[in-house]
């Protein structure tokens, strides 16, 4: 089977499973909106203040939602033995894992990207800032899925896995948070955004190359 076909097959399977059990998706999606909303309610109705903290709130909520989504990434496949089969097949595990991560991003990351402009409107962003917010999340959320997959693979089957994955991975999310919010904040005050977005692209390429390797290595150790 060619590598592209493997990727398509795995992504398709993950999306079918997600459609069968929409509650997992909805939890992450609603958590993202609720978390942003809680901050907005907590700081009160001052529109200027809301505009200033909006970027940080939306980005931090995206980070937390991404961590919350990790729980079922590998554990479902581990329970029914599919993960073991993935390790046994002759096709490279890194490619299969990359496909798993892509599928995970499509069902958990992409909805966050799509809903983010609406949240931006609630915080009073300009049209340009809304576009930059969505595009920075479009570049940033795949990095979150890639790094998060490493955390999920490291903590697979460990007691308190999600909390532990959060402790391990949230510090590594910080560069994404920094450059993503810098880009959107730059759009809000009307300065150049492309340099921050370029750095996000660089991080994405870096994670795209390394994360599947670390995921595969961790899973091999976990299912040894």
């Amino acid at each position, binding site marked *: 089977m060619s590598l592209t076909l493997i990727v398509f097959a795995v992504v398709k399977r993950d999306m079918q499973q997600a459609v069968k059990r929409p509650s997992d998706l909805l939890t992450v999606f609603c958590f993202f909106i609720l978390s942003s909303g809680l901050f907005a309610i907590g700081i009160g109705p001052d529109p200027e203040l809301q505009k200033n903290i909006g970027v940080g709130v939306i980005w931090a909520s995206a980070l937390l939602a991404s961590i919350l989504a990790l729980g079922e990434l590998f554990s479902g496949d581990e329970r029914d033995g599919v993960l073991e089969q993935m390790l046994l097949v002759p096709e490279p595990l890194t490619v299969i894992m990359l496909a798993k991560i892509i599928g995970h991003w499509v069902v958990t990351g992409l909805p966050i990207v799509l809903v983010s402009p609406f949240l931006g409107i609630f915080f009073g962003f300009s049209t340009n800032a809304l576009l930059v917010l969505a595009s920075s999340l479009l570049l940033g959320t795949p990095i979150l899925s890639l790094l998060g997959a490493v955390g999920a693979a490291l903590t697979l089957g*460990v007691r*308190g896995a999600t909390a532990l994955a959060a402790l391990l991975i949230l510090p590594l999310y910080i560069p994404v948070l920094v450059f993503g919010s810098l880009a959107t904040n730059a759009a809000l005050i009307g300065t150049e955004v492309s340099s921050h977005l370029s750095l996000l692209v660089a991080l994405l390429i870096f994670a795209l190359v390394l994360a599947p390797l670390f995921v595969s290595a961790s899973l091999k150790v976990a299912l040894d």
Partner: protein
Amino acid sequence: MKKIVTEVIPLNFWKYSTPKTVFPIASKVIPMAFLFAVILCVAGIYVGFFVAPTDFQQGEVYRIIFIHVPSAWMSMFIYIIIVFWSLMGLIFNTRLSFMMAQSLAPTGAVMTVIALWTGALWGKPTWGTWWVWDARLTSELILLFLYIGYIVLGASIDDIRRSDRTSAILALIGAVNIPIIYFSVEWWSTLHQGASISLTAAPKMAASMFLGLCLMSLSFWMYTIGAAFYRLRIVILKREKSSTWLREFEGAP
């Protein structure tokens, strides 16, 4: 005429990769390392507080450098050693390498806390703030969380083989943070000052200040060696408690 026979004894590094060989060495090294740490610390503090001149810009407060800089160096260096031993363990499959890495981690975390704490104490009088979220301080804080994550991950997996390997992989992933900490003051314009000491140029400080820093750094080195070997002994005692060599070594029946 006598024939001179030269015998080449191959140096066997693997000899030192077993707990059995290292355990007695560690037992001998621990008291020596702690003794040197105390002597060097006393000498370093004497030079730092009574010999080194007052800084013309920062006054007396700069003297916290004699604790801040060595602990910050050690916090990064210990992580590099952990990465080294993790790699060794993953490549050569040596149990002792993982034990070494795990024995170093708590000392690394302590050094990171000391560096952050003394940095805050230094920041208040010189910058007017305990903390800023600049690149150097943030990346050092990330290092602390990496240490804590490494320790917690290792502790929460019961199977020793998996625990060793999984935490080693985490150590490798976190290694990306070390160059970020080190170069952060060059890459971004930060409130944290740049380095005054480099390997390639003469130190930009008075000779007695440099001497004080060297003594304190050596003291921290000695402490790290002592503490790591102390912890290594405990790890070996725990893991090898049923082995015959340990019983023979302790002279128990």
